[in-house]
């Protein structure tokens, strides 16, 4: 009897092996694409099946319907987000290969060693400067361009950098900052300008600490378009009669901006500031492509990658990721709170 069962098992094994191999070991683009189609079909089939079943049976209890709708999403979040997060926190208390519990040592190292203090300082610099500068530039641009003849074109120009990947932007700006000796022919636009006004060329990306600012400019360049788009829409949404009432009350120019425009677009301003702050905290691509985090320009996200995948210090990398996570939380909370307050005003 046992033998028959065993044999049956072997037979099943024999017949399903090609299918399993096809599913698990994809090689070549065609195979991968086909696998993707199969995965999508499988997902649609399973989800559709569940929802159709719930929909068909009218007597299905309320909780079952809830589980059918929310369950898949919850499961995806659990496996894709919550579990990895917990796992990361867990491994941040272990040594480089996870074999030994070392308590808070990784965190102590991150906050005390000058190499990592520099990383934290740089991140702070980024998070302070990028949102403020990008929002300010976006706001001024939105106000200046609003209702002019070339508004659409001007806005498109400003928004264009948003559509470029950060890696692409990094490469573009590396050309902008490109260094050649003063006597040589210049390829970098900025150094060419320096030469034209009679100054020596500068190693924009090498000279610390100002090289951080030159990296920050790239991020501002990308994010200002986003700020401008949201803020221009918010300015447009201010009711005409409120602006007219303010004109009758004696407001013009700067005063109108200070007393009416800014308070009216406050919710949008907060959204823009916090959104950019979050994007900035996670910045990685720009630093990676432009300086590799060298010359005193590394930021938390870059360092976390560096430690995890270059230095193969999983524990320290995890600790840096957790620090990043903790830093983002207050911004998210502030963002959500402001949204609630602004909903109350309306």
């Amino acid at each position, binding site marked *: 009897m046992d033998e028959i069962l065993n044999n049956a098992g072997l037979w099943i094994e024999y017949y399903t092996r090609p299918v399993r191999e096809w599913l698990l070991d994809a090689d070549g683009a065609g195979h991968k694409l086909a696998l993707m189609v199969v995965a999508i079909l499988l997902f649609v089939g399973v989800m559709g099946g569940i929802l159709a079943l719930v929909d068909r049976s009218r007597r299905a209890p309320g909780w079952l319907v809830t589980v059918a709708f929310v369950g898949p999403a919850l499961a995806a979040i659990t496996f894709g987000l919550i579990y990895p997060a917990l796992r990361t926190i867990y491994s941040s208390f272990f040594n480089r290969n996870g074999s030994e519990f070392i308590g808070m040592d990784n965190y102590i190292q991150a906050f005390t060693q000058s190499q990592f203090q520099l990383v934290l300082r740089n991140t702070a610099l980024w998070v302070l400067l990028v949102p403020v500068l990008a929002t300010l530039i976006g706001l001024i641009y939105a106000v200046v361009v609003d209702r002019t003849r070339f508004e659409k074109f001007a806005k498109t120009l400003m928004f264009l950098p948003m559509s470029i990947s950060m890696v692409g932007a990094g490469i573009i700006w590396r050309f902008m900052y490109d260094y050649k000796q003063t006597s040589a022919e210049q390829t970098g636009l900025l150094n060419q300008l320096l030469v034209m006004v009679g100054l020596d060329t500068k190693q924009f990306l090498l000279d610390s600490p100002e090289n951080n600012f030159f990296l920050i400019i790239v991020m501002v360049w990308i994010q200002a378009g986003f700020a401008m788009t949201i803020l221009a829409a918010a300015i447009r949404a201010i009711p005409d*009669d*409120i602006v007219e009432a303010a*004109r009758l009350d*004696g*407001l013009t120019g700067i005063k109108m901006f200070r007393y009416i425009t800014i308070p*009216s677009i406050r919710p949008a301003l907060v959204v823009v500031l916090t959104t950019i702050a979050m994007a900035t905290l996670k910045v990685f691509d720009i630093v990676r492509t432009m300086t590799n985090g060298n010359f005193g320009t590394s930021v938390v996200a870059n360092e976390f990658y560096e430690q995890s995948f270059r230095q193969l210090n999983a524990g320290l990398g995890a600790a840096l990721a957790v620090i990043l996570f903790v830093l983002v939380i207050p911004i998210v909370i502030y963002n959500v709170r402001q949204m609630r307050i602004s909903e*109350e005003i*309306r």
Partner: protein
Amino acid sequence: MATVTYDQATRVYPGTERPAVDALDLHIEDGEFLVLVGPSGCGKSTSLRMLAGLEDVNAGRILIGDRDVTDVQPKDRDIAMVFQNYALYPHMSVADNMGFALKIAGTPKAEIRKRVEEAAKILDLTEYLDRKPKALSGGQRQRVAMGRAIVRQPQVFLMDEPLSNLDAKLRVQTRTQIASLQRRLGVTTVYVTHDQTEALTMGDRIAVLKDGLLQQVGTPRDMYDTPANVFVAGFIGSPAMNIGSFQVADGVAQLGSTRIPLERSIVGALTPEDKGHVTLGFRPESLDVVSQGAEGAIPVKVALVEELGSDAFVYGDLDVPESAAKEIHSGAGDARVIVRVDPRQVPGKNETIWVAIRPGERHAFSASTGLRINA
């Protein structure tokens, strides 16, 4: 306090041919409550906004008192405006909303507080001074908008349909409040509305506009008793006047077998362009129910009766040949007339009643120009 004068004031919106306001001539006395009324798109709001300085004046002048303000900034015109949607600043408290203009003008804080509190007391807003507009009801917001105007102690109040966002009951209540407040403060007021009842009840005088042209200015009594043309006749009064075109022969207006005698002066005023027709108007309340044989009796077949308690209105079809009936219309539609009847003796549906126009309450207009012909 000051007068307001429109002197041939014209507004043409860019990209349009026809002026939104065409050579408006209007003089408003010091302390007067003038109502600009007309259907939507008639230019009444534009006229008001020209006075406020929110709209350019393309030709002509506007004067406040003796001062030409045509090219003066809105804030320097010494006016205050109440907007249809109130235009309260959502991020400021009620007190800040009301005192904002003074704050910008640099008035001392104590003075602002005093004036705001006074205005709040007049308008019953004292307990809401620290609230945001969001936390107020529609009626309260409307009062804040009024308060914002009062606090400025301007020469002229401008009001742009300030009651249109209130419910019917509150509208009637606020209507009287605004009117009595204006009489008390004695500030010259220009008030825009599309509602002729509001115009009749609130205004010292009414100006009726249509297609950017001023049709008639006068007291509510003038407008009701002697409308200058067919448009004003049909616009002022509720329910609307019955108006019809009648064939004139032998000094009588004919409608089917009905003959309505006309004064000689009216017949004499007809011109060849009128093609032997005259336009007659008669209000629902100017009709008496009479017996069939009476002179000028018009047969009306009752279609619907509206009972309002104090009054009853019969909506009826003219019981005359089709072609003649088409010429008559009222607020209820073509070939329909409205008759006010004794609410205690209401005719039944499909019954035919005979009505006659009360002597002296018939309005005659030229069939070609629409202008009033005085008997």
